[in-house]
């Protein structure tokens, strides 16, 4: 799991330059997007809970980029980057965070409830572990219809202590469903360190009780994560049976914008920042002479445009109108919302 820095970077070599650059661009986009979102929150453009995933880019970009068109992704409340990596337009994500009608959920969902069925981003959910069972259900539909699509369910380390996770793992295995369970282990559930909440320190070991093949990968190494996720996705697609992937990573920011940060040390945070997925990936690209500062600078500029465009788009979009739209979509059809 140690980071590969030897000059001949075999793992890197197996990928096309385009793919490598795309990985870099996507991680960078998510990093800058989240930074901007944090800024917008402090400027009160965004309300409610906000859970940034800065630091986790290697893990979720590596995992989600392993999917093919048509595959489904289920996520949590820490999902902005998951949605964007799955192809949801950044501007529609930002508009949702702003609570505007052009948001992915028309401003009704907010940060924790992005959704884009066209892109097969099946939603961010705010109940820990809740979406894992939903993901199992969509994979059941894939099998029911005999399609080749698979489902990726992303969740945190804390979610693996919840019964919903366990019932879902068992169902997926007993019914042989094509689900890639991806545990984004950022080592804390809010302020609770993994070992204070989980009987085992390695989340992938929880798959043993279900005979589900599992492995842990360095989530700060986007290539290692992508390769492991591809292996998992291929296996699941061919064998029509689940796989469990744990990506060890770290969140640099607080759990949400309100976080005492009294449960971990500055040193620990620094230590992980030194293993930053983007920085370390850049070094590898440079060492392998596959990309230059020039390329990175271009990416920065490009990403900044996209993020700024997202903010402008969100700002320009209107808010839903309580007077006329409050009851929209309460039900399909004309079911009365209330009889009083």
């Amino acid at each position, binding site marked *: 799991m140690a980071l590969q820095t030897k000059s001949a970077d075999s793992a890197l070599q197996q990928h096309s330059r385009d793919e490598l650059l795309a990985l870099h661009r996507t991680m960078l986009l998510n990093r800058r997007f989240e930074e901007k979102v944090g800024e917008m929150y402090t400027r009160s453009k965004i309300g409610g809970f906000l859970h940034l995933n800065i630091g986790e880019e290697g893990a979720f970009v590596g995992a989600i980029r392993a999917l093919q068109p048509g595959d*489904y992704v289920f996520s949590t409340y820490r999902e902005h980057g998951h949605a964007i990596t799955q192809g949801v337009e950044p501007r529609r994500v930002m508009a949702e965070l702003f609570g505007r009608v052009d*948001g*992915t*959920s*028309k*401003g*009704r*969902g907010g940060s924790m*409830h992005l*959704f*884009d*069925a066209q892109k097969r981003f*099946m*939603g961010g*959910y705010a*109940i820990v572990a*809740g979406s*894992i*069972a*939903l*993901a*199992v*259900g*969509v*994979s*059941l*539909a*894939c099998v*029911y219809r005999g399609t080749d699509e698979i489902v990726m369910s992303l969740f945190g380390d804390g979610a693996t202590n919840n*019964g*919903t996770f366990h*019932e*879902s793992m*068992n*169902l997926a295995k*007993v*019914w042989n469903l094509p689900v890639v369970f991806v545990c984004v282990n950022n080592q804390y559930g809010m302020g609770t360190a993994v070992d204070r909440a989980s009987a085992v320190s390695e989340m992938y070991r929880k798959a043993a009780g279900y005979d589900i093949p599992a492995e842990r990968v360095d989530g700060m190494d986007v290539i290692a994560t992508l390769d492991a996720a591809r292996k998992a996705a291929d296996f699941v697609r061919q064998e029509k049976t689940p796989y469990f992937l744990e990506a060890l990573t770290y969140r640099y920011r607080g759990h949400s914008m309100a976080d005492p940060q009294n449960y971990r040390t500055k040193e620990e945070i620094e230590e992980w920042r030194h293993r930053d997925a983007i920085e370390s990936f850049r070094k590898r690209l440079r060492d392998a002479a596959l990309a230059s500062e020039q390329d990175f600078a271009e990416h920065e500029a490009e990403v900044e445009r996209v993020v700024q465009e997202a903010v402008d788009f969100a700002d320009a979009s209107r808010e839903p109108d309580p007077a006329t739209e409050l009851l*929209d*979509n*309460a*039900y*399909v*059809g004309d*079911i*009365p*919302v*209330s*009889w*009083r």
Partner: protein
Amino acid sequence: MAAITYRDALNQALREEMQRDESVFLMGEDIGVWGGSFVVTQGLYKEFGERRVRDTPISEDGFVGAGIGAALAGLRPVVEIMTINFSLLATDQIVNSAAKMRYMFGGNAKVPIVIRMPGGGGHQLGAQHSQSLEVWYANIPGLIVVAPAVPADAKGLLKAAIRDDNPVIFIENEGLYTTKGDVPEEEYLTPLGKADVKRVGRDVSIVTHSRMVLLALQAADELAKEGIEAEVVDLRSLRPLDVATISASVHKTNHAVVLEEGWGSYGITAEVAATIYEVAFDYLDAPLVRISGVEVPMPYNLKMEKACIPNLEQVVTGAKKTLGKAA
């Protein structure tokens, strides 16, 4: 019209909808090989196979969640929770997922699932197996909640629920499965959200749902012997509540008894009573009478259990009371 059991009516509805629509499938504990612990799904496993009649592990939270996911993906799952008592393990998925997804995703999602579960007591199954918790679900926006009392409605409402694009909580009652009633031979649907006057009368309205409708009809017979004509309003649908039908009945009779098998405090009868007072305040000649189950965990002993569930005498007396006729 043939008289069949409530159980068979449900079974027919499931079979017909599964034959009609390939996307309809069943999930639940022991609904397949065993045929359903209340034998509602008997024969379907043989006819449709494992793919469409899926036995589940004892994972209410997990398989209800999976059903919701399958519905999100466009299938039409009919999930059986063996009894409403066990649905307490799935309330998160029902309330936080199924009831929320359409609205919170801005109308971009649809969850056409039916979740069937029988409630009720009367079989000495004790405190953990005898509850009537439908009021919990009736309180939740985003859900439709129905509770048929007779075979014809059981079949028509289940077919309508399966075809509806909203999550529907389908409340059955363990005491109804073997009851019989006429069911039309031809295809029909019973509209969700509409109450039904099961007996017409001019003196007092007895408003209730599920198994208690049968008790209300019995009471109406008794009252008739004394020249009192009771009208029995079967709510059928708890969410949405058909206020128009309730209102019309009470405007006519000027007297009401509201009745439920479960606990009345914060129960179905609380909403129905409040609604009646609201829409018929100037029509009521006397305070309505609320009758519901005794508010204790259901005792096992037969006599004790009987004493906890509304009985004929209570309903008859209640009707007379609101009519100002001392029993």
